[in-house]
Structures are given as C-alpha cells and as structure tokens.
C-alpha cells in the first residue's frame, strides 16, 4: 500500500508532526479527508506544486480548522456522499488550544461527525517556538524565555481534553507519538465513533524543545513514564481507561533531556521549580489512577 503521507516532505529530521500525521492516516485509512490549519505540518507537506498527501487535503487558515471540517461534513451529507468517509481535522496546539478554540467549540457543539487530532508540540513551532496555551510550566520559549528573574513560562498547560469533554464529546482521548499502537488504536476508535471526537497527541519537537533528532520517541515515552503526560480515554464524559505506570520515573529524567528546561538545572531556585513539576506529575497519578 502506498503511504498516505508521502516521504520527501520538508519536516525536520525527527519531526513529531510528521509522525503524528502518519499514525493518524494509518488509523483512518485512505477514505478520509484531512483539514489542517496553518502550522508546521501544513507548511512542510504542501510546498506548491508538491504535496505529500495521498488523501484529499485542505489548508485554509490558522484559526478556522474545525469550521472548515464542519463545512466538508455538511457538504458530503447534503449531497449524500458521506458514506464511510472520515473527516479529520489535524492541527497544532496553537491552532487548537488558542486561536482556533472558538471554531472547535462551535463545531463540537453542532455535533458534526468528525475527528479533531491535536498535535501538541507545546509551542508555536512554525513561527519559531513561541509560547502557546499548551506550553508547560517553567518551559523556556522565545516569548517566555528563562532569564535572570524568570524561570520561563509561568502557567501550566491549558486542559484542552477536559474542555472537549465538557462539550459532550462521546470520545476524548490523550495519546502520544511515543506509543504508536496506542495512538493508532485511539485514532481508529475516534474516527469510528459517531459525532465530534477528540484526540490529543503529545508530540515532542526536536527543534523547539532542544533534543537530538534521534530522541523524539524517547522523549515522548519519558513524558508518559514520568506521568507528566497521562494516557487516558473518556467516553461520554466518563474516564474509561488510563495507561498504568508501575514505577514512575522522576520528572528530572524527562526535563534534563531538553534545552527548554535547562535553566532549571543551572539557575538558583531551579530545584524548587522541578519540585513543582514533580507535583504536577504526582497529581496526574492521583487524578487518573496511574499506579
């Protein structure tokens, strides 16, 4: 079978967006239509006159991805062409948690039959690693830099999955590109469940986070193994599954691999910040029953 996302795109070596898109298409199969907002994925896969997409693909703007997807769904339904076609909106964390929030909220409230996949690389990567609502606590980005009087981003990640659950979505799940089977299973489930479903895929960015291009999957796994990124499923508002982590690793193991957290190990008071981050992981263990 020909790959649905063709090699030869312009992504960085070790690019998380390419991995996330690839797994998503492996799950959805070729009878799908992909909608993607402005961001790394769209830019690197569609340099005119080339395209990496062997499925129909449309990019409109940065903040209207879900609205465009809802229009496609409406068109296919109106014309009696919906059949088994899966409509997948695939966007970055900035497009999802920040600027596209309104259109996602509207499309979920309207109940369109589509799946939204958030490729969460925890910053605005396409424009040069600026902070987004998904940037984690104490990460240094180009607009929340660590400095003499700053440990970087002062706010925790916005809880987007909870917001989507609150919209009454029948299926909301978190996943990680470090766990291909998990991600493919969940995307498959999401596209098969009727109605608006949401997959939030944690996706470490080699360039933006500052780690070696061979370590994307390793970093992704560490986020899960430290319980900073819990993998869980919510069906009709109920937590139905969470991946157990028998012996959680200390968050330092995850943080120390990344340039964006380097200041925590060099600045005075950095250890206090690391304790706060450990507390976030501990809270996840508690909340999702990870042990």
């Amino acid at each position: 079978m020909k790959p649905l996302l063709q090699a030869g795109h312009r992504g960085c070596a070790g690019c998380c967006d390419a991995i996330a898109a690839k797994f998503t298409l492996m799950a959805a199969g070729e009878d799908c239509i992909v909608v993607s907002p402005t961001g790394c994925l769209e830019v690197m896969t569609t340099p005119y006159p080339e395209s990496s997409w062997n499925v129909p693909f449309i990019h409109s703007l940065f903040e209207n991805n879900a609205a465009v997807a809802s229009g496609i769904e409406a068109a296919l339904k109106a014309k009696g062409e919906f059949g088994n076609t899966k409509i997948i909106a695939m966007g970055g964390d900035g497009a999802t948690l920040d600027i596209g929030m309104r259109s996602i909220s509207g499309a979920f409230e309207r109940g369109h039959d589509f799946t939204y996949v958030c490729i969460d690389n925890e910053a605005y990567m396409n424009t040069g690693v600026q902070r987004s609502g998904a940037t984690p606590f104490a990460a240094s980005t180009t607009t929340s830099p660590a400095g003499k009087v700053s440990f970087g981003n002062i706010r925790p990640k916005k809880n987007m999955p909870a917001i989507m659950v609150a919209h009454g979505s029948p299926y909301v799940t978190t996943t990680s590109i470090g766990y291909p089977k998990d991600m493919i299973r969940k995307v498959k489930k999401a596209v098969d469940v009727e109605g608006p479903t949401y997959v939030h895929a944690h996706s470490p960015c080699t360039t933006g986070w500052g780690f070696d291009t061979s370590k994307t999957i390793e970093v992704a796994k560490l986020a899960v193994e430290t319980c900073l990124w819990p993998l869980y499923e919510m069906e009709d508002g109920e937590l139905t599954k969470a991946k157990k982590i028998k012996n959680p690793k200390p968050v330092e193991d995850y943080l120390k691999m990344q340039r964006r957290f380097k200041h925590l190990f060099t600045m005075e008071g950095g250890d206090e910040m690391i304790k706060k981050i450990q507390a976030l992981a501990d809270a996840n263990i508690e909340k999702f029953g990870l042990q």
Partner: protein
Amino acid sequence: MKRNFEDDKKNMVVVEGSYAVADAVKACRPNVISAYPITPQTHIVEDLSQFIADGEIPNCEYLNVESEFSAISALVGSSAAGARSYSATTSQGLELMHEVLFNVAGMRLPVVMTVVNRAVSAPINIWNDQQDSISQRDTGWIQLHAEDTQEAADMTAQAFKIAEDPDVMLPVLACMDGFILSHVYEPVILLDEDLVAEYLPAFEPEFKLDPKNPKTFGAFADPHSYTEFRYLQQQAMNKALKTIEDAADEFYDLFGRHYGGLIDTYETEDADIILMAMGSIVGTIKDVVDKLRAQGVKVGVLKVRSFRPFPAEAIKNAIKGAKVIVALDKNISLGLNEGALFTETKGSLYNTNVNIPIIGFMIGHGGRDIPMSTMEAIVDEAKKVIDSGITVESQFTDLKEELL
C-alpha cells in the same frame, strides 16, 4: 420558446426584500447554508431556516455557526467539497470575515454571499451605507450592487451563475442596501425553480475534495509561484467582465428582466451631467432626473452594478459625451476624503482620451436620509463645474454644522 412575461406580472406578490432574496437562494438549490445573525441580515437567514424546517430545500444542510468567521470558513470546506454554498451577512460580520474572504477567493471557491449593506462601528450604527462591502474591495471577491428588491433576488441567481463559470471560479458578494431594500415590502416576481434550474446548471467543479481522487487545496506558495496565483485571479476578474454581462443577458432571455450587466444607464445619451452611484440610491436619482429633465436640465444616471471587477471601459463609454460627472458614494476612504466610486472612476479615466471633470459627494452615511432636494443641490453644484470648473473636488453632503 419565448415565455409570455406579461403573465409574470399577474403573479407578483408583496413580500419583504429579505424574503425575496431567501426565496431566490432556495430556487438556486444550495447544498450548504451557514448563518450567523446580524441586523439587517437576519430576516434572510430566518426565512431560509424556515424553508429548511418546512423541508422546502432538498439536499441542503443549514449550519447555525458560532460566528461569522466560522460561517464563511465552513463554506471554504463545503465549497471545496463540491457543494453550492451560501451565506449572508453585513457590517461587523463581514469585517470579521475579512481574512477568510481572501482565502475563499484565493482558493477559487465560488461561494455566494449576500451583503445587506450597513455602516461599520464606531460609532455603532445599524443603518445603511456601503462602507462594509467597499472595505472588502481587494479581497478578490466579485462585488455586485442591486438597485431594488427584485434585482437583489434576481442577482442571487446571477451571482451563482457568474461565480461557478469555469472561466471565473470566483466568489461573489451580492450587495443590497440594508433596511432600504432588505426590510421593504414590495411587489416582486419570485423566481421559478424550474426556470432557475434551466438558467443555473448543477454545480460540478473540476476539482473537489474527494478520497477517490485526492487533491491538495490551500498549498503553500513561495515567491517562485505566488505572483502567478495573483495574476490568475486578476485574469479571472477580467473574464468576469464578460460573464457578468452574459449572465444578465441570459437572465433576460429566460425571465424577461434586465438591470444592466456591469452598468446600467438612464437618460445618459445626451446628458451634460451624469450622476453615478451604486445600489438603491439609483432609484431616487432616477426620480430626480425625471423631474429635472421636465425642466430642461440634461441630466442622466449611470448605475454601477459591478464594483469588482471595476467596469472602467463600460463607464468610459457611457460618460464620454457628458460635460461633468458626479460620483455619489456611501463610503469614504478616510485620509483621502473620497468615496471609492469617485476615486476609481477618476483613476480609471486618467490615462484615457476622456477628459471630463469629475466631482464626488459622500452621502447617506449611517443611514442618513437622502432627499430629492439634496440631489438637486448636487446637480446645481455640477452645473457650476460646467460653467466655471471644479472648486471642491470631493466633499461630505448635508453636514450638520451644529453637531461639529
């Protein structure tokens, strides 16, 4: 077979302008309608939702979206998926759509949207002028203006015909003046669905989002190719000049009604003074022309139906025999102190052999009434230009000094 158009007159019904447009949209058999309410557009989308509720528009999805931004964005998706797509808005809603308007046009999606022209905030004002659509001038949408409710309804069908022409493939803003046309009850002939089906074939785009034939829409174009995309949009606008005329002529053949193509003229043939304008004000001007003609004043009116593409050649030919041109604008480019019709007419004549003085009046902002007396005073100013040349090139009309 020629129809007996006289029968149509017997079938006239008194309906609100908004209803006439909504009914015309229905007759065009859209597949996706998106709607977000804003005065004075509301009645159109309410009437359409009632048609849907009564099962009168088959194969159509009606989307109650959460903003105008999503109203037009949803149509990006639906049109790209091969659906005939419609929305209506005005003023703040249209301005909120601004970014998406470029996107629709750039992707060559033949969406049709009614603009029920209204002033823009601040100060907030719900009444008619045309600042909203004029401000979308460079987004790449064809922009047509209707004079009365019948034309607004009929223009809807023409708009789809023009937009979906394979040589054009550009979106169309079909503009009608807020309240003056949208909320007035007048006798109109509602569009016959079978005739519209004959006039407007099913929408079958060459390219669409289709898993059986995957294509990429909205690609990234670098400096190597971006210019050519822009050039081709301009070429399509050039082609639309003819398509707009053809759409009006074909409409006449089937329905017996004609409002001009790119422009229309009234009593301009031997006119010394030609007033040019867009939209409902043209009706008022025609009355003024009749009155002044009876007094021996050689005055006529040039109605501009198509603001984009701008019909420079048609305008030139229509005015070349006159002694003075007056452009009336329900909009202003702040900092230039000119309305768009004035600026663009002046600009398009500059390098031609037509050298007639043109003056501009900005008029009817925020719904300010335009009585015949105002128009007559403007004609008096035009006469002075013939006698002694231009003193004031462009100015506000009926300013209330006591409020300044």
